[in-house]
């Protein structure tokens, strides 16, 4: 404490206050600057995308010749939904199951290992996940929507485990004890008391993971490869996704392809932001309840 006092004592009072004001101002400016960058990114995408976005874009496939105008990314939008859908179907039970294990059962070393590896897997670059699925799946069964879904599931599982475990831990212990005291089994307690209490939090976690998967591109390059021209709803075949179509068209440089890519970028950002905001709103309800 004496050290603290002596640290504070240096310099004139006016000078210290000037410095204080300066730093406050500086930090405020920094915040404003970063918000400005966010606005720049979003506004740029919105402006470029808005002028190219129309109903056809959402309902039509790209024109045969990539340098032609018109057409849209309907096949990519459908592909994204299907692939992320497959990933969600795989990742949600596994992710929430593992989270239940960690929060309700796991106190041993194995749980420590699972928790550690969840964090590590979360940190693996997604392109490496793509390479993994290529080795496991594509080399045996070819490029397909399923391969993409599998890669996305590997990306989503650790996200869901992390978010879900935290939410399950927020459920007050009294609820569990009351249930168990009545002779209800641990399994039933978890299913009918703990999970319902954490539902909105779990949904938030899943939605954030879905939002993340929607925007992923790199692993899909190695797993579903893309299918630019056609509406494809059979995941046994190669599929396009919104992110792949944006990537392809953005790097193609044909003016009309660029216009489609901007419209695609706006669509993707809108989808992701809607998911994000919805997840936050649901999550807020949860924290209010807890």
């Amino acid at each position: 404490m004496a050290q603290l006092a002596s640290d504070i004592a240096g310099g004139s009072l006016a000078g210290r206050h000037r410095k204080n004001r300066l730093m406050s101002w500086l930090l405020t400016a920094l915040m404003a600057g970063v918000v400005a960058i966010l606005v720049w990114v979003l506004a740029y995408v919105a402006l470029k995308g808005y002028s190219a976005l129309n109903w056809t874009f959402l309902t039509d496939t790209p024109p045969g010749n990539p340098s032609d105008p018109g057409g849209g990314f309907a096949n990519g939008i459908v592909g994204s939904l299907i692939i992320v859908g497959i990933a969600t179907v795989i990742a949600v039970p596994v992710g929430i199951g593992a989270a239940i294990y960690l929060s309700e059962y796991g106190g041993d070393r194995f749980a420590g290992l699972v928790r550690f590896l969840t964090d590590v897997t979360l940190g693996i670059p997604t392109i490496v996940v793509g390479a993994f699925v290529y080795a496991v799946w594509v080399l045996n069964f070819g490029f397909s929507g399923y391969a993409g879904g599998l890669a996305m599931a590997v990306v989503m599982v650790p996200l869901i485990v992390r978010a879900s475990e935290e939410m399950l831990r927020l459920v007050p212990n009294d609820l569990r004890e009351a249930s168990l005291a009545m002779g209800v089994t641990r399994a039933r307690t978890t299913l009918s008391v703990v999970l319902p209490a954490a539902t909105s939090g779990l949904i938030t976690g899943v939605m954030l993971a879905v939002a993340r998967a929607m925007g992923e591109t790199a692993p899909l390059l190695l797993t579903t490869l893309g299918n630019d021209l056609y509406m494809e709803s059979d995941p046994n075949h190669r599929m396009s996704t919104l992110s792949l179509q944006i990537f392809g068209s953005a790097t193609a440089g044909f003016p009309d392809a660029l216009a489609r890519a901007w419209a695609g970028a706006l669509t993707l950002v809108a989808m992701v932001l809607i998911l994000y905001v919805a997840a936050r709103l649901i999550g807020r309800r949860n924290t209010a309840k807890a």
Partner: protein
Amino acid sequence: MSASGQAAAPPPVTVGAEARALSRQRPRLGDLTFRALVSGSGALIVAIFLAIGIFILDEAWPAISHYGIGSFLSGSRWAPSEAALNLEGKNPYGILQFVYGTVLTSAIALLLAVPIAVGLALYITEIAPSLIRRPLAYVIDILASVPSVVYGFWGIFALIPAVKPVANDLSDWLHSIPVVGPIFAGPFFGPSYFVAALVLAIMVLPIVTAICREVFAVAPLAEKEAALALGATRWEMIKLAILKRSRVGIFGAAILGLGRAFGETIAVTMVIGNSVLGITTSIFGQGATMPSVIANEFTEATEPFHLDSLFVVALCLLVVSLIVNTAGKLIISRVGTRIA
């Protein structure tokens, strides 16, 4: 205080001994099945991780055993076309330049992002009116939710034209200075390490900010109040009661930010210039990173050991991500928070 209560490896939620005893009286098949299912999910995560490691190593093995791992890490020449000509010769697949590209772009990104993130976190936790603190945190998080491909696209068309005059001026002023000059050697054409690093800086900002916020949140309230009571200005309080004891935490946040930066693929691929010529000293030059070379060459590797060598790159990424994320975790858990 409250945050430090959540230790790095929390125990399972414990229930009272009586309740436990009650439930133990009747072990049921359903109960056991459920337990097996959720434990199985946990085990599946271990299995996924092991499978990733094993399959990547397995695919990388032919190249590693043929050329030796050392030659990958020491060679900066990436020339798949030379592999077929001389299968017994020197390894044409040196990956040093990609390691260099990854380290360089990530380092510049962190150099820019960490101070800004610290500032943002301080602003949110200490200066902003309490009503807008949470919304501000959300706004910063939105930066993280913008997809990588969109950042790359924006980088090409919005960021590069904006950076161009600045980079050209920097290059004009600095390129003739000895020692540092070569770092800024022009010409600046657009796609470059520098632009990739800028995009990365924006992309890692949210995670570093979020961790810094948590780190600052565990600064003891008593000390903050003591500083203010002793007549410190708010900035002095921040400096003495928060920043001083958060150095380790900020370092941990930077490491976890690094974990995010070096694995980033698509945005970097779109703006780095994708050149595999070797190591370029100028930050305005073009290059490639470990993830970008995989994205570019993976589906088209036809030369002998080409695909295997890309799996070597993936293996290195995997190992580095393991080290970096574990280190970051350990550092942060020492600070007493469970985040990221």
